[in-house]
């Protein structure tokens, strides 16, 4: 019953394999990395699976489950190569997707681009109005759907060879009858069409966001479906009969079929896995309050996990590129700062770092692949923090001389600084940008970072962990056991998760029994939907769990917050609990509450969860038998953030054992990742291999 987590990133495809007693190999955990194959991700995935099975010595047919984090959907949006989409929409409102929110992406610009106009998800020629009208507030049919027009529209799209079709009518969240009927008609005309109704994909108020989400689904859907089918076939032809599950943006996994149908839910697939992996690694040493910082070559992904609870973005903030997508996404911030971020002096003489990046190609100057702009990685090399012979596990030879030269000429000389000062400046500016973003994602949302542990991972994370923790006053740093594959770990600790929503605008203060009945009916309906999905996935009913939220706002506000709903039926008694939860949420988010303003429920959300058995990360051997000196490699001068250069010992992380402690200054080296422990800090190795670093007062 072995299982594999496989996470595809831009450069590497990371794998983790867990085997059990019943498997031929016995219990074990294996990790592996292969090169990604951007042209067809499934090649890298297959390579990785083959190799990790070989390494572990396990037969392919023993693999029971494969959980996959994929960027295939996100890449379609980045490369703008999705499907040609056709749209049926309410007459008089043909251009909702073109107008969007009528706000410019730039406040002060004349030459700006408007992505939803220059690269529309649905071209205007394929947006076809049909006569129909549903009226608020109750969803009354004001004008019936014109079925002839609908059929003619479908025929027109058919004649253009369009097979990905969306149906987006105003107020369909109140009454989906017209959308459903139009879908039937389209399927009669084009039986093999990929049809998405806005009330199916995002059944919530606000036409532009709902339509955009539906359009995005149709835009990425056909290719995602093709990729997933293709991958399943390939797995089968290799004799792998494992079930395939996909990571969704909301931090839950789902079946490949569901993700093919609602591919809009996996746009943030890979990113979500990293956050979940971070939470899991924190829990290995009982740390609940975690700030994850995943630093790669071009960008850094940040998230705040209070008390082990992964936060979901406010649906008003869920964008993919410039397009709003109303699917639940794990709350994280991505900023353009990483090892490849370029340092430069601007026209006005200011010292800047990023967001431009040297990327993987040509990469930092020290890679000697033709890069000439000094990067953050070059600065780390100059400061002696990244040893050439261990760079990327020793797979890449680097030239520190080139890094020195670039920083001297491009930064140090013009600013009249020493080489060291310039290199330290590059890192300080990057860390300052990053810590501001961490604060915006934590302190600004009402979380006190002093109660949090900062968890750096990704290739470039652990080197900056202590500096970032100091900037934001986090209580300690926790470097997970395998920082390079945290996202893959996340894949094997994620529950199955389905979410459904319905808008039921209701004022809590004046809610009558009939309103409560309506909400209860909606909750029941949404639970049934979740249950059906989980049963389809073969999850027995006794393993189903449900979470229910009322997305509320003060009457007249425009932004909702999630308030927990009481378990069981809503009654006039427990209704107040929603109000109370909402006031508390509002006060945390905005520092303010309005006790005397009516609270309105806008949308009800039910999440159906099936817990999976979590990965069992192996305990690390106790270090009592072997001294920490066994892990000592060599020592070398290293410059720290305080500007001091000290001869600093290197330790091999693979040889560190539980209970070992390392006092700074020290550098801990492992495959693909380097951790820095400055003077005055001490690192302690925990029983599952987490390395905790905190200030140490001798």
């Amino acid at each position, binding site marked *: 019953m072995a299982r594999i987590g496989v996470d595809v990133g831009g450069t590497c495809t990371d794998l983790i394999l867990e085997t059990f007693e019943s498997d031929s190999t016995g219990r074990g955990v294996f990790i592996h990395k292969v090169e990604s194959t951007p042209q067809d991700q499934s090649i890298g995935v297959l390579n990785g699976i083959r190799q990790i099975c070989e390494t572990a010595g396990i037969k392919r047919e023993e693999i029971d489950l494969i959980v996959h984090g994929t960027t295939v959907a996100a890449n379609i949006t980045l490369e703008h190569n999705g499907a040609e989409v056709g749209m049926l929409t309410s007459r*008089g409102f043909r251009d909702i997707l073109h*107008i969007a929110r009528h706000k410019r992406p730039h406040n002060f610009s004349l*030459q700006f681009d408007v992505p939803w106009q220059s690269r529309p998800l649905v071209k205007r020629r394929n947006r076809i109005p049909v006569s129909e009208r549903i*009226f608020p507030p109750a969803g009354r049919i004001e004008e019936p759907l014109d079925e002839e027009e609908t059929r003619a529209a479908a025929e027109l799209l058919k004649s253009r060879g369009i097979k990905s079709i969306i149906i987006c009518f105003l107020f369909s969240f109140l009454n989906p009858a017209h959308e459903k009927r139009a879908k039937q008609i389209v399927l009669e005309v084009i039986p093999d069409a990929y049809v998405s109704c806005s009330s199916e994909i995002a059944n919530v108020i606000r036409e532009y966001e709902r339509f955009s989400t539906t359009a995005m689904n149709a835009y990425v859907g056909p290719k995602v479906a093709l990729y997933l089918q293709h991958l399943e076939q390939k797995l089968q032809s290799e004799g792998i009969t494992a079930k395939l599950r996909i990571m969704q943006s909301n931090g839950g996994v789902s079946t490949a079929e569901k993700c093919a149908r609602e591919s809009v839910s996996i746009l943030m697939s890979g990113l979500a896995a990293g956050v979940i992996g971070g939470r899991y690694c924190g829990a290995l040493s009982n740390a609940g309050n975690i700030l994850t910082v995943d630093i790669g070559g071009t960008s850094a992904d940040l998230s705040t996990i209070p008390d082990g609870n992964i936060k979901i973005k406010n649906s008003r903030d869920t964008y993919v590129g410039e397009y709003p997508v109303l699917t639940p996404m794990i709350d994280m911030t991505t900023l353009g700062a990483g090892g490849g971020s370029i340092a430069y002096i601007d026209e006005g003489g200011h010292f800047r770092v990023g967001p431009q990046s040297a990327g993987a190609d040509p990469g930092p100057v020290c890679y000697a692949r033709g890069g000439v702009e000094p990067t953050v990685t070059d600065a780390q090399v100059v400061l002696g923090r990244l040893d050439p012979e261990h760079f990327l596990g020793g797979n890449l030879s680097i030239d520190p001389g080139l890094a020195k030269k670039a920083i001297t000429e491009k930064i140090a000389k013009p600013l009249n600084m020493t080489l060291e000062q310039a290199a330290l400046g590059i890192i300080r500016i990057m860390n300052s940008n990053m810590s501001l973003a961490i604060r*915006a994602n934590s302190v600004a949302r009402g979380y006190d970072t002093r109660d949090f542990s900062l968890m750096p991972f990704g290739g470039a994370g652990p080197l900056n962990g202590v500096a970032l923790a100091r900037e934001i006053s986090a209580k300690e740093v926790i470097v997970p056991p395998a920082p390079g594959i945290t996202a893959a770990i996340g894949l094997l600790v994620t529950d199955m998760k389905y979410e459904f929503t319905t808008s039921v605008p209701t004022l809590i203060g004046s809610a009558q029994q009939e309103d409560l009945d309506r909400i209860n009916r909606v909750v029941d309906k949404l639970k049934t939907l979740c249950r059906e999905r989980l049963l389809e996935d073969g999850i027995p009913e006794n393993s189903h769990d449900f979470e229910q939220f009322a997305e509320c706002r003060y009457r007249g506000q425009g*932004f909702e917050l999630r308030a927990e709903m009481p378990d069981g039926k809503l009654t006039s008694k427990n209704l107040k609990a929603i109000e109370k939860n909402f006031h508390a949420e509002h006060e945390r988010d905005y520092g303010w509450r309005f006790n005397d303003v009516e609270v309105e429920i806008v949308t009800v959300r039910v999440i159906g969860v099936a817990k999976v058995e979590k990965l069992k990360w192996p305990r690390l051997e106790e270090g009592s038998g072997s001294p920490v000196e066994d892990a000592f490699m060599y020592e070398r001068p290293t410059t720290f953030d305080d500007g001091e250069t000290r001869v600093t010992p290197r330790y091999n992380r693979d040889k560190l054992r539980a209970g070992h402690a390392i006092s700074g200054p020290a550098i801990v080296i492992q495959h693909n990742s380097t951790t820095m422990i400055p003077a005055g800090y001490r690192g302690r190795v925990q029983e599952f291999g987490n390395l905790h670093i905190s200030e140490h007062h001798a």
Partner: protein
Amino acid sequence: MATPKTDPITLQVISGALRTIADEMAHVLYRMSFSSIIRESQDIGAGLFDVNFNTLTESEGSPLHIGSIPGYLRGIDKCLQGGEWKEGDVVIHNHPYYGASHSPDLCIVIPIFFEGEMVAFSSNTAHHVDIGAATPGLIIDIPDVFAEGMLFAGIKLYQAGERNDALWKFIESNSRVSRQLKDDIDAQIASARLGVKRFTELLEKYGRDTVLGAADELIDYTEKFMRSRISEIPDGEYRAEGFLDDDGRNRDERLPIKVCVRIEGDSLEVDLTGSADQVPTAFNVPFDGSTKPACYCAFRVLLMDTYTADYKMPPNEGSFKPIRVTAPKGSIFNPEFPAAAEARFTQCNRMIDLIIKALAPVIPDKVTAGNSATLSFAAYSGVKPGGDYWVFLEVNEGAYGGRPLSDGPDTIDNLMVNTRNNPIEDLGMHLPMICDRYEIRDDVMPGVGKYRGGLGVVKSQRLLSQGTCTHECERHYDVPWGFMGGGEGAVGKVEIYTHGSDGAPRSVPSKFSAWPLESGQGMSYYSPCGGGYGDPYERPPEKVVDDVLDGFCTVQHARDAYGVVLNERNDLDIRATNALRSTLRNQKT
């Protein structure tokens, strides 16, 4: 003596921190607020200012708000209650003859004290739906500034931390939507308090002198950048003129706008001499709070375009300093007390458009052809069965002129406007209104050109119970110009219609005040379309075909204006196109 310079690394750290503070302030304000004009349209500005009223940092928000707060602060300085700032004060201010942008934009100011000394101000402005003016929501045809509603001149909502209950009670009795007004003021206070907290933390971390020193250097830096851009423009006087439809009362009096931009080395003057005299309605522009920030905005979009820039400039006073603004007292851009001056936006936008036109010949790579350059601002209101008012304010979009490398964007907020529209579905759920149409205007074509002008919008909103409507917009007569061989755009229009009636809609002027509408009556707004940029015969024929397929251009128009020939299947006939284009070119020369 020059102070020692901040080291370049700390300077970047403080620059980032200042920007983040302003963003956080804005975030709290629009997320907490109730009225759709703040929460959806984000018609706000927020930032930090030094004791000499220089902008240290400002949020993204609505461009006219940004840049107006120093005017408010200078005004408050002349009329502050008690004449002195105390720790814990919260001041409310909106007097258009004491620096305010216009009276509905209430400004909240909290002084920041550090170690017993006042070191800065945390402040924001936000547009409020109703402050008890003569007509609900918006006002145009009124006699004087006193008809604009409550005027606050440097009054303290909190005095040294003590809440001024009488003032709050007064506010409560003087607005048609007092609950919303009070809660939105509370949201502003929360935002300004957050600014105080965050700036104090910054001062504690880096020390007063370092932070204020760095802030000054950042201002110098932005100023230096702006000056170097100005000095790239050849010295000289550049002029352009246009005219406004009317003042909202005297329908046949067109009102000239004359713009002269004087470039002198690395500084410049915008001289509005020759523009119309002040008008007897509210269609005047407060000089300090609106005319000046509008000029600053013009040069930020032209010379510090954030789309073409490689990196962000610190948003502060530095971009304002090289710019001098002149408008004679008693003119529409510098009215004298007690003239009303609430409906001031569209004149500002037209003035910016004319600055662009004036400079187009010398910086053709940075401009646009004529823009819609208006603002459609509509106020719908009515009385609920219980006797309470409902008031809804809506900003409608326009379109850009063609540009040196791209078409003018369609159906989007133009120049100094940058708001979010209110969802049609949200409106329908909460107000006795329904939207009948919201799409690209298809009754006219935008300006032709190598890069065509943007298409305007049509929006039809209908009342479902009796109420009133006030509307301000512009450009029913003065058509957006084409540039470098591009064609003119199209003027806007406004109609009143009755749902279900066979009668044609009634054409009405661009501005009207508190017109009663029956249930079933509505207003359709058609925004102007942008002018074209460059020779239309140079537009790639494929793009013309795309426009035909997308309904932005007819087959006939493609042939007549672009010389592009399509066959009966709407495919490009490239041979016929080449032949026609060469004939047309010859005819032209």
